């Protein structure tokens, strides 16, 4: 029995390795620089993680459904540019729904290619990453977008407003996380996403319309991207064509860090939120330690590798195994 408990503890460490690593990181950073756990800093990190977080929520659906989405970064640039441009042309009330429609049309297009035509999602979304970037540049003519009259509009509320001292981006991230978490864990649709990602053939044999489910995951992902674009545009009230560049990898890092399996069929919204926060705090901690901002790109990569390693380590119950 003593053997069993030791095994239990080892098993716990292997399964919760990411949380344990996170705790160690946090304590080490806090000791190195007490400002790290300053309430303002903590809020700051969460707020700046919110945009990434909102996108990660949607990608969680796609990944659990057994696919990848590498187009979210450039899709977010597109949303931001479009909503800023339309704001001055047709006003915010019409600009926002129009931007959502246009972004979700892109998501639907990917959904058709991956879901109904069964094309490989890596290829499709990698191609879309570049195609949407081209679309954005064509739309903007390569120029930056700015809202002309920054004082005379309520548009800033999504990025800069707040309720009872809690910044709006955090509230939107939290609300979306709660709603999507309920959809994923409590509704028939959520169950079907797990089934399709876990074993697509068996899902089909159970009468689940696999193509439609995959299509829906991309539609949800694009909805989240549009929301992220809205927050981004509203926060800065102006933007370059490349705001979202590179975010697809950070999003993926957060989702994997949270423990969603790249093979599909596993993961939760709650874990993705943890993944987003871990990524945000680690990047912030390294900045506070004086690491150059551009080192972040390397750090993100290292975190992805560690996350994937811990993921398979948890499955085989050891960091290293002779059996595959």
């Amino acid at each position, binding site marked *: 029995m003593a053997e069993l408990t030791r095994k239990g503890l080892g098993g716990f460490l292997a399964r919760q390795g990411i949380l344990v690593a996170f705790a160690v990181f946090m304590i080490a950073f806090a000791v190195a620089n007490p400002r790290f756990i300053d309430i303002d800093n903590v809020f700051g990190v969460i707020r700046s993680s919110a945009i990434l977080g909102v996108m990660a929520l949607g990608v969680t659906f796609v990944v659990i459904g057994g696919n990848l989405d590498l187009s979210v970064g450039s899709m977010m640039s597109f949303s931001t540019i479009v909503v800023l441009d339309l704001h001055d042309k047709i006003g915010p009330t019409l600009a926002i729904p129009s931007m959502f429609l246009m972004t979700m049309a892109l998501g639907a297009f990917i959904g058709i290619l991956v879901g109904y035509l069964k094309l490989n999602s890596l290829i499709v979304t990698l191609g879309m990453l570049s195609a949407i970037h081209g679309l954005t540049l064509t739309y903007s003519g390569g120029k930056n977008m700015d809202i002309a009259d920054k004082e005379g509009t309520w548009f800033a509320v999504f990025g800069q407003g707040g309720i009872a001292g809690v910044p709006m981006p955090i509230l939107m991230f939290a609300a979306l996380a709660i709603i999507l978490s309920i959809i994923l864990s409590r509704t028939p649709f959520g169950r079907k996403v797990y089934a399709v990602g876990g074993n697509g053939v068996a899902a089909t044999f159970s009468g689940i319309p696999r193509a439609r489910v995959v299509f829906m995951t991309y539609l949800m992902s694009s909805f989240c991207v549009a929301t992220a674009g809205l927050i981004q545009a509203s926060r800065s009230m102006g933007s370059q064509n490349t705001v979202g560049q590179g975010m697809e990898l950070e999003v993926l890092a957060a989702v994997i860090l949270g423990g969603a399996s790249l093979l599909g*069929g596993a993961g939760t919204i709650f874990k993705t939120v943890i993944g987003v926060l871990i990524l945000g705090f680690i990047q912030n901690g390294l900045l506070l330690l004086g690491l150059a901002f551009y080192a972040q790109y390397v750090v993100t990569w290292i975190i992805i590798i560690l996350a994937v390693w811990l993921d398979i380590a948890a499955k085989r119950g050891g960091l290293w195994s*002779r*059996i595959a």
Partner: protein
Amino acid sequence: MTDQTPALRLEGIVKTFPGVRALDGVSFTVMPGEVHALMGENGAGKSTLMKVLGGILAPNEGQIFIEEQPTIMSSPMNAKAKGVVFIHQELSLADELSVAENIWLGELPKKSFGRVDWTKLYDETDAILKTLNVGFDARKRVGDLSIANQQMVEIARALTVEPRAVIFDEPTASLTDAEKVVLFEVISDLQSRGVGVIYISHRMEEIFKITDRISVLRDGQYRGTLNTAETNEEEVTHLMIGRTLDLSRNAVTHEMGEVALEVRSLSCGDLFSDVSFTVRRGEVVGFYGLVGAGRTEIAETLFGLREPSSGTIHLGGEEVTINSPADAIKRGISLVPEDRKGQGLILGMNCRDNMTLPQVSDLTAGPFVSDGAEVAIFDQYRDKLDIRTPGWRQTVGNLSGGNQQKIVIGKWLSMRPEVLIVDEPTRGIDVGSKSEIHNLIRELASQGYAVIVISSEMPEVLHVSDRIVAMFSGRVMREFTAEEVTEDSLIQAISGIGADKVA
């Protein structure tokens, strides 16, 4: 035989999983040159014991001896190097690789600079395949083979080394009779070379045909060893399940209703052609034939997975087109597919969610899945089918093979279909549960369901069917009623003898 050194001896093996004591101090001995059967109910711990022996799982307690030398099996490679070869219950082949590569995986013959010696690889593989008498060659991609042929590839793996002991974990579950004969030849050849063979199966006929001794496990405990020649089915069954079984052929007949399903000259490419039959409410129709006779393909067509090239399907007298499984389910058709791992289950999902998957959209309270309704269904079918699991939260992949199969059956029974199609329903299921499932099929029919049973096991087809359709190479050869059918006429019909006369 008694004064020989055992090829293999296990002593006091204990293996626990969270919530399960799968092996509770199991000891047993395998002599060289004997075929030793390991029997027990689904979940008794047979596969777990063999995984310990094959270096896949580390035991919590206990000791393994090879020729009386204490040994630790640290990995499958290690076990193989020590002469213990394991043929798995669940296939573990790489689909994309060739037959030869799969057989030699990890130990491909090499030339200088680490280059693979392909000629040698293919030649040696073809030599092995020849002794197995199979109809494919070393270069064939494994993914293109039927399940039965994939099983033969697994078996071929055992023949690449000079083994001391070979473990066969339910090797015949998906083999046809002809392939079984080949397998039994392989086993008797191993036996004559002094190899100890451990043979796991739920099929009594096989056990009594090829084994020398029978050891029985029950709930992870060793129950005893019998000499095959001195025992009988009842005694073994009693040791396995603690009671005796009534295996008499069902004599109960009941009223049949109107025609539930009618198929008129249905064809699908060259898979099957001109197939016609009817199934009434309250009737069990058995489809018997060799693997490749087109039975599974007919089932898949009825379930909306294939598009027929000609012919019609009628449900309750009305002509229908079935476009998808969802469509079929809506019309009251259920299919228990033949490949539980690939088609039947989401292995990473828990037991309850797997079972309720086809009806999850209907089990709602408001917009949400109703926990209570789901658990109620799971509990009902767990009891009905005697599924052994620590609870509904257990991941299906952690259940024993037979209990996984029961989850699939429960999943489709709980849909309460009008037409129930079961494809090899008792593959890998123990004798006790098998007769329970047969009784259940009869009971469903008596309640007015129309049931189609596809099986490659003649006793099963004879046992449950009111009518038997014999198929050969995509065609219906003959139909028998339960009264007129005999084993001989059935064998004749499915081997295509007299094909011209009938067709």
